[in-house]
């Protein structure tokens, strides 16, 4: 389940003359992305506090700092990176007593940032400097604010004929109603209850899908593919069939249409994140040729699934992948510990893997990493694009920040086409990371090995798997977690 986002990167001089234009930009961008006037002002104020601090205190001898702005359907995120003097806002807490007795406003700016944003994370990265992350939620109208309970719960009449159509922006309200009617409040993708967010995602080409209607044009099924933001693949991520219309072949009709649409759009593959509370989704995926490639433990927060026995724990998912392009043989750097299972996963995908031996490893100074924090799910995914000598220290510092923030799971994607991955696995295992599986074509059309670290106990008895590979993954992941001392 990935955020849909557009990213803007700015490199700014640490000069006080940049404060006002940068703040104006964030304010305008906030409005443009859907914040109200008041929210955009609050967000711009929080940003002002951070960059004023960067310009005044961090860069005593000048220099640059970077700003990344990301927007998704439900949230805006601004990340400010800067090199500069070591500093930890936790040690500089605001105190009104200090103001009154000494005129000392230390920590005031960060207190304001905390209060005016929905999330504020500070990461001290050692030699790599500091990173500030702030987010602001975009408020949209929930489907229950548009219709009464009676209108939402009204089930379409039974019918013998169904018609399938590509989804358009005009379908947004019907989709939100369908989700509410079928799942109440339990559907994990919050965006689906907000017609405005559905319209925006469709308008921006972030997803495509199909809707099934009865003879009377009432919506009874919806299925969509969410386009990956950094690779030419998509997630079969949003699906619903109205309860009274299940078992009529609607699901089959929609899945076939989606696969055809994905092929026509030139996607290289489709993947699904099937929950393991039950095996229904995994069975559907398997029926259409998807193959299990990873078990991601504790990826979603706990949610109650009616009619299924499961523990009070975070929800794990199986990654099922459907290749839409033929890859007969590939050469990768496969870590020794995991080689048998990895080869089997690829064999299952119809790919023969050649394991390249490592001769000499030359590391650059800096690693290239991307960090995506899902504040709602309390998880972080770090993608490694290349390794540098700073790899271990950067991971270590990030873990300290994530632990302070109370994240429940950290997942790291390692590129299988770079030799240092074999070494990186050992480093990560020493920090309590264990095997999750393969993420085929997941970033920049490259294959990645996912490692995972969870901060809550997971009882594997409540993880239900369907395919042979998924069952093997479950055993293997559990064993590896034990070996690194997690279970």
């Amino acid at each position, binding site marked *: 389940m990935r955020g849909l986002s557009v990213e803007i990167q700015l490199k700014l001089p640490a000069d*006080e*003359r940049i*404060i*006002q234009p940068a*703040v104006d930009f964030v*304010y305008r961008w906030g409005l443009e992305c859907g914040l109200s006037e*008041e929210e955009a*002002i*609050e967000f*711009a*104020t929080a940003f*002002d*506090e951070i960059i*004023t601090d960067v*310009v*005044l205190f961090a860069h005593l001898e000048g220099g640059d700092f970077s700003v990344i702005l990301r927007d998704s359907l439900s949230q805006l995120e601004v990340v400010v990176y800067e090199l500069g003097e070591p500093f930890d806002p936790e040690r500089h807490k*605001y105190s*009104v007593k200090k*103001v*009154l007795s000494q*005129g000392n*406003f230390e920590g*005031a*700016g960060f*207190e*304001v940032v905390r*209060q*005016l944003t929905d999330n504020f994370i500070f990461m001290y990265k050692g030699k790599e400097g500091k990173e500030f992350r702030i987010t602001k939620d975009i408020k949209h109208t929930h489907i229950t604010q548009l219709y009464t309970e009676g209108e939402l719960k009204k089930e379409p009449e039974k019918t013998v004929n169904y018609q399938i159509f590509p989804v358009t922006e005009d379908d947004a309200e019907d989709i939100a109603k369908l989700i509410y009617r079928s799942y109440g409040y339990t559907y994990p993708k919050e965006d689906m209850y907000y017609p405005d967010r559905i319209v925006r995602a469709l308008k921006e080409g972030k997803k495509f899908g199909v809707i099934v209607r009865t003879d009377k044009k009432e919506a009874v099924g919806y299925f969509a593919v969410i386009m990956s933001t950094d690779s030419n693949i998509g997630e079969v991520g949003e699906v619903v069939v109205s309860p009274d219309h299940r078992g009529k072949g609607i699901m089959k009709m929609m899945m076939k249409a989606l696969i055809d649409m994905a092929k026509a759009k030139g996607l290289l593959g489709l993947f699904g994140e099937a929950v393991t509370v039950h095996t229904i989704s995994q069975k559907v995926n398997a029926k259409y040729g998807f193959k299990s490639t990873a078990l991601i433990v504790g990826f979603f927060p706990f949610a109650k699934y009616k009619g299924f026995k499961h523990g009070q724990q975070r929800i794990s998912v199986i990654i099922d992948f459907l290749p839409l392009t033929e890859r007969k043989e590939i050469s990768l750097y496969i870590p020794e510990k995991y080689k048998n299972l990895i080869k089997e996963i690829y064999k299952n995908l119809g790919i023969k893997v050649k394991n390249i031996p490592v001769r000499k490893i030359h590391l650059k100074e800096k690693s290239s990493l991307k960090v995506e924090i899902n504040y709602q799910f309390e998880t972080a995914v770090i993608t490694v694009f290349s390794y540098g000598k700073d790899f271990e220290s950067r991971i270590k510092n990030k873990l300290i920040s994530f632990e302070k923030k109370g994240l429940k799971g950290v997942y790291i994607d390692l590129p299988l086409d770079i030799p240092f991955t074999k070494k990186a696995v050992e480093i990560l295992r020493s920090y309590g990371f264990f095997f999750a599986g393969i993420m085929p074509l997941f970033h920049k059309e490259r294959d990645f090995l996912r490692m995972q670290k969870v901060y809550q106990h997971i009882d594997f008895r409540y993880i239900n798997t369907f395919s042979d590979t998924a069952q093997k993954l479950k055993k293997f992941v559990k064993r590896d977690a034990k070996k690194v001392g997690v279970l």
Partner: protein
Amino acid sequence: MLKRLEFYSKNNQLYVKLDSDFNYPSVKKIEELISIEEAKNITIDCSYSKIADTEAVKFVYLLLKSGVNITIVNPPEVFYKIIKILNLEDVLKAITVVKEDRV
């Protein structure tokens, strides 16, 4: 159209109309003016300002402590929010606030 900071000074009174937000860059400009024009009463017109920040609150607080009378015209709403977050409502009651039609 770009706005410019306006100011005038008469009989220990300084009037400043900010050309942008009430934040650090503006505080610096006002400080420069104060260093030239001695003032016992300062009016800061924020009609063009959408935001204010802790540097502005700190600046106003320290001026008040030094015995200067402060009037703020059209302070941005977030100025009050910051004062509340910092628990300084009682101390900053001494500011005279004037609300006019915003430009």
